């Protein structure tokens, strides 16, 4: 037992230099760390990505490896540098991540989330837009909006998101500064007073699912208002953002009418948030081919994915390309897999995997799994 442990430790130690970095704070990451993995604290991981945020296959893999690691990569470092350098008193900056399938946009967002969390941003994170608009379970709760005519609510999704929001920002929501600016009347008996803490609004949305969509809308307005007043900074991250600009969603009203994305209340709330009319915030979005599967000519560029409508809505923004692994990143990743005993066998395997995966991170992960 002891010998095994020693051997284990030796192996870990001998390779630790090559692929791992002990620097676990994203703010400290610099170009020396490119291609290295850093470990995220388990509790923090649960808090940040507990309700989505990491891709499902990656979650599975980290469960197998019994640790969550994220590779420090150039796009994330670029955005962090920009965030550090930018003046928050100016209107919000928008970054749009784009790239081929499986190159790590979601992982970049996850990395940035960690950074934003460390820096004390209020996080508004939508893990995957198509979960709201395209995934239709057998009993997807849908109803016509009470407050807005001709709109559709997805109350359960909204409530789930509120829970996600609450977990991600639990330490910030305790602060007494977060007060509501105006009174919200939900029904004859239920209303939220002006000056009540924001967490009360969230609690109401979670407990009274009927009003969840309206609560989301209210929160968006409140957050924008609070940021404008300079109480705190806000970090908005939306994965698969171009899902909002598809022609149709998979949702149907009780009368079997197909629903367009702009007729969903959640869409309007998030689109409200990504407008450039507020300050003290950073917006990171990702344009994803998977989010509009109806698209025929597969192009990775934001112009093609967001369409003219979305492009105009976002303009101006900073496009950030997430590329495939570089040679060095590939080698560190392979070393990591070898360390986890995930990849075994002769070193020629790497050469072959390099060719078959074509340096695509997701493909590489997929192909290593059965090895």
């Amino acid at each position: 037992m002891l010998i095994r442990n020693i051997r284990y430790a030796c192996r870990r130690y001998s390779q630790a230099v090559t692929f791992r970095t002990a620097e676990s704070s994203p703010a400290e990451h610099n170009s020396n760390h490119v291609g290295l993995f850093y470990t995220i604290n388990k509790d923090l991981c649960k808090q940040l990505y507990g309700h989505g945020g990491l891709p499902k296959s990656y979650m599975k893999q980290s469960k197998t490896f019994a640790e969550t690691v994220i590779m420090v990569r150039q796009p994330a470092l670029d955005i962090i540098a920009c965030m550090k350098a930018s003046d928050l008193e100016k209107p919000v900056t928008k970054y749009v991540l784009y790239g081929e399938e499986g190159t790590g946009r979601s992982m970049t967002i996850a990395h940035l989330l960690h950074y934003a969390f460390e820096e004390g941003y209020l996080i508004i994170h939508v893990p995957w837009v198509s979960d709201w608009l395209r995934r239709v379970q057998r009993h997807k709760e849908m109803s016509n909006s009470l407050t807005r005519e001709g709109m559709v609510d997805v109350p359960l999704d909204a409530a789930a998101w509120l829970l996600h929001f609450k977990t991600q920002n639990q330490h910030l929501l305790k602060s007494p500064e977060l007060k509501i600016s105006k009174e919200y009347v939900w029904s004859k008996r239920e209303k939220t007073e002006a000056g009540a803490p924001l967490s009360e609004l969230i609690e109401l949305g979670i407990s009274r699912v009927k009003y969840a969509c309206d609560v989301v809308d209210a929160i968006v307005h409140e957050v924008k208002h609070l940021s404008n007043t300079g109480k705190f900074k806000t970090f908005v991250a939306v994965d698969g953002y171009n899902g909002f600009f598809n022609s149709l969603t998979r949702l149907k009203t009780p009368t079997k009418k197909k629903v367009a994305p702009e007729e969903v209340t959640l869409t309007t709330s998030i689109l409200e948030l990504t407008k450039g009319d507020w300050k003290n915030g950073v917006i990171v979005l990702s344009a994803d081919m998977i989010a509009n599967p109806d698209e025929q000519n597969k192009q990775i560029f934001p112009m093609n994915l967001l369409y003219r409508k979305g492009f105009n809505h976002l303009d101006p923004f900073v496009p950030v390309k997430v590329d495939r692994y570089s040679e060095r990143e590939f080698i560190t990743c392979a070393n990591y897999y070898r360390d986890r005993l995930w990849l075994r066998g002769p070193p020629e395997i790497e050469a072959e995997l390099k060719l078959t995966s074509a340096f695509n991170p997701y493909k590489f992960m997929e192909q290593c799994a059965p090895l």
Partner: protein
Amino acid sequence: MSNVIKLTIRQVIPVSKYSSCLFNSLNKHVREYSSKTVTNADDIFKQFTDWETLSKKKTVSKAMKAYLERARQHDEFMKKQEVEYNIGKRHLANMMGEDPETFTQKDVDRAIEYLFPSGIYDPAARPLMKPPEEVFPARKAAEFDEAGRPHHFLFYTGKPNFFKLLYDAAEHLQESYKFEDKVIRKKAVPDQNSKLELSSSMWVTKEELELILMEKVTDLEYENFKLVMERLVSLPYSYRCIEFIEKYRKPLASQKFALEIPKPKFDEEGRAYITTYECLRKKARGDVTIFSPGTGKVTINGRDITYFEDIQSREQVIFPLIFTGLANKVDVECNIEGGGPSGQAGAIRWGIAWGLRSFVERSMLESMQVAGLLTRDHRRRERKKPGQPGARKKPTWKRR
């Protein structure tokens, strides 16, 4: 003949047992007779009447009779066929407007192909006109003499030629052992240069062996044959019976392509390149260009290897590169169209392997041949048949 006579003498001997001098003289004569086969006029032998031989000569065994009858019929048949063939050949020559006297078998084949064009897949099933010796298999000559006694000493094994082969092999083995002993006694060492070089040839197949021996050979017997021959070959002095071994070996058909390997051309940057056109597989057609030296970049229709979505097609494309160990030393550019991903990948694989011939060693070439990289895959999609759901698939059986 001497055998027969020896036998007769022995039977005669008991008659003259009482006379020892006679026995001695007899013995002497027998020896003389059997060695020289010259008859002496006053030979004591002649005084005996050899009834047995006389009677044997008269009676022809039934087997012999049947054989003679068969042989006669066969000869007649072959003669007839030969005449028919010659007439047919002359007719054919006239039909083709050529001189019947100088009309060769090659011309016959050409004429038949022209007059009876056939798209049948198997060449053996196409119409043909060959001399009867080729069409009808050769027969074994009589294996026994007129008295019904077999010529061959292994006749009663049922497969005399095959067992003679094994017998000869064993003889050679023994000889080889003896020779080795002799050499060891002289304290010499085997000559390394005269060692048998058999890497470029292989043993004849079972079918070919059957043709050589004119006998059916079972799988087990064929295995035994190979075993014995391998043992013979493994001996240090097996080169002494090389003619015997060579009779049962045939050359590997790998030397063919070696002559036609093109020399690479050079582009303006000074890189060697070679283009293989007509890379085919299923419905895919394309061409592959290989640049050396390179960095392992694969370009397919202007895109990298992500042109293929699935891992199997990617593996197909890179397999020749990995096999030859040139994955990081050459660049590949392909233009491919038609067919689906697997067909296109297969076509590219063949094209890369074919182009890499100019950049690899001779030994690697041979292993590529063995790995099947240089073989073209001629299989095509099989058509769907009417009355069934697929090419081979039959409808689900239903009682009623």
